[in-house]
């Protein structure tokens, strides 16, 4: 593989995978929480939260990236706060790319998990509560295992989206090789100049292969889970 990819391209591949995995992993807990809240709780601000989650879908990615830049950038309020108090910097780091990918993928992840939660029979959760399980335990021992397929679907959607995310990322953290240059950014750069199509196509193929691998893996796990639950 290394012989038909330049080191910089190879770096972009690795970075994209790393960014996507982190984006998925780091947003998963919040994704589950928000999905649960949207599916099960009625509270003032329900609609607002729902809207907020969907926002990155509605806005052109460039706008999301710009808003991220203004908020989490070096001069952004949140960015400065995080930097001073926790030493976390997003601006122009791979962490920022992960943040952008996570936010862009968030609506997909939340919706998949929410649908799964809504499909769980509350009667099973009731049964668990009569057996002594508190709300949290009911969630951990009954709801969570039952929504695994949905979580998996959400993760795979989010991973695919994160692998493909471009507009928000390049606007937020730019396109710095080795630091923020993801596969799509690299592809974009190639497409901006004459004769870059071949190189772009090669990178596109790699993106496809990686995403398909993730997809197959998730289908395989989902089927294994389904077999365990459905069968004997």
């Amino acid at each position: 593989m290394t012989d038909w990819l330049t080191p910089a391209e190879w770096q972009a591949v690795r970075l994209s995978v790393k960014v996507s995995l982190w984006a998925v992993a780091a947003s998963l807990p919040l994704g589950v929480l928000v999905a649960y809240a949207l599916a099960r709780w009625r509270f003032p601000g329900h609609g607002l939260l729902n809207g907020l989650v969907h926002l990155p879908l509605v806005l052109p990615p460039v706008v999301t990236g710009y808003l991220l830049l203004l908020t989490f950038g070096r001069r952004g309020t949140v960015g400065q706060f995080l930097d001073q108090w926790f030493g976390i910097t997003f601006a122009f780091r791979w962490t920022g790319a992960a943040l952008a990918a996570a936010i862009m993928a968030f609506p997909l992840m939340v919706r998949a998990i929410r649908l799964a939660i809504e499909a769980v029979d509350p009667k099973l959760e009731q049964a668990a509560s009569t057996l002594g399980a508190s709300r949290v335990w009911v969630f951990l021992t009954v709801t969570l295992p039952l929504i695994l397929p949905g979580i998996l679907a959400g993760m795979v959607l989010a991973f695919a989206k994160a692998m493909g995310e471009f507009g928000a990322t390049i606007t937020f953290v730019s396109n710095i090789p080795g630091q923020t240059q993801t596969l799509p950014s690299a592809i974009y750069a190639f497409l901006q100049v004459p004769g870059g199509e071949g190189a772009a196509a090669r990178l596109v193929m790699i993106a496809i292969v990686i995403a398909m691998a993730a997809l197959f893996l998730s289908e395989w796990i989902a089927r294994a889970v389904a077999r365990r639950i459905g069968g004997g």
Partner: protein
Amino acid sequence: MMLSLAIRHRFAGFTLDAAFDAPAGLTALFGQSGSGKTTIINAVAGLMRPDQGRIEAGGLVLSDSTTGRFLPPHRRSLGYVFQEARLFPHLTVRQNLLYGRWFARGRQGAEMARIVEMLGIGPLLLRRPGALSGGERQRVALGRAILSNPRILLMDEPLAALDEARKAEILPYLERLRDETGLPILYVSHSPAEVARLATTVVLIDAGRVTAAGPAGAILSDPATAPLLGLREAGAIISARVEAQEGDGLTRLGTAAGPVWLPQVDAAPGTALRLRILAQDVMLARTRPEGISALNVLAVTIRDLTPIGDSGMLVRLEAGGEALLARITRRSATALGLAPGQSLYAVLKAVSVAPGSVGIGSVS
């Protein structure tokens, strides 16, 4: 421990308005389909919050609409056998069984191996519930509730999908549970035989209201409530004590009415029993019959006679202080010239008393 309940709840088209006490022992809720039994149990479980009313168990207020107190289900220490099994599909049968135990650390409870053996679910332990048969599911649900070491047991038709043989194995266990643990059991069943055998308290429910409630003996032998249970189930419950296991497979019991022989009762001499004698199984004779196959002939006195149904007569009898019931046709009553105070003989076939009607424990 005593469970007291007085609740009121409205659904569109259905109003529940029930109040009763369930003392330690098994309280049977008996009533037609749709009369509100499951609703009551759900209220006790905390799965439904009644519009009004109060539920209290052993001094602990579970819910009270005036103070707004409402203990969530998981803090009520319940074992609930649902009308549908509600097993956890992602857990094995074994994990299902142990689920409640996990949250009941500290409370000591029934022994897993014994329960599994009794329910005959040993071969299923490693399977997941998805492909279990209806009865298998129900047995696992029963085990799951019992093994959670509850302080209140709620059972909604727990034996409905089981065959007689399996029921016969489970009933004695439920009796022991009732007598040894002192936990209140709320039990819904459509089988009068089951109710008669197990219940220490009976609550009759009709269209959301309690029409009668009280000790099982009194409710089941009261000619006024007999029709509610079904004529065929009218009967008396008398106390008995095992006197001897006789050689030919029969057991001799001592009762206030005299000795009674039954097919083998598995209990040591001295054990106290509850014997349910159905009114329809009692034949009356003016003179002590000879040369007949029935082993049990008791000298009795007629207390009163109540016409029942189109052609029947329910005869309340007294025998050495115990009440007995006999159901015969009015034609026979006339032919025999029956009247209160009269002395005659009650004939009871040894095999008539169903094994299901011989319960361990004394009459409450």
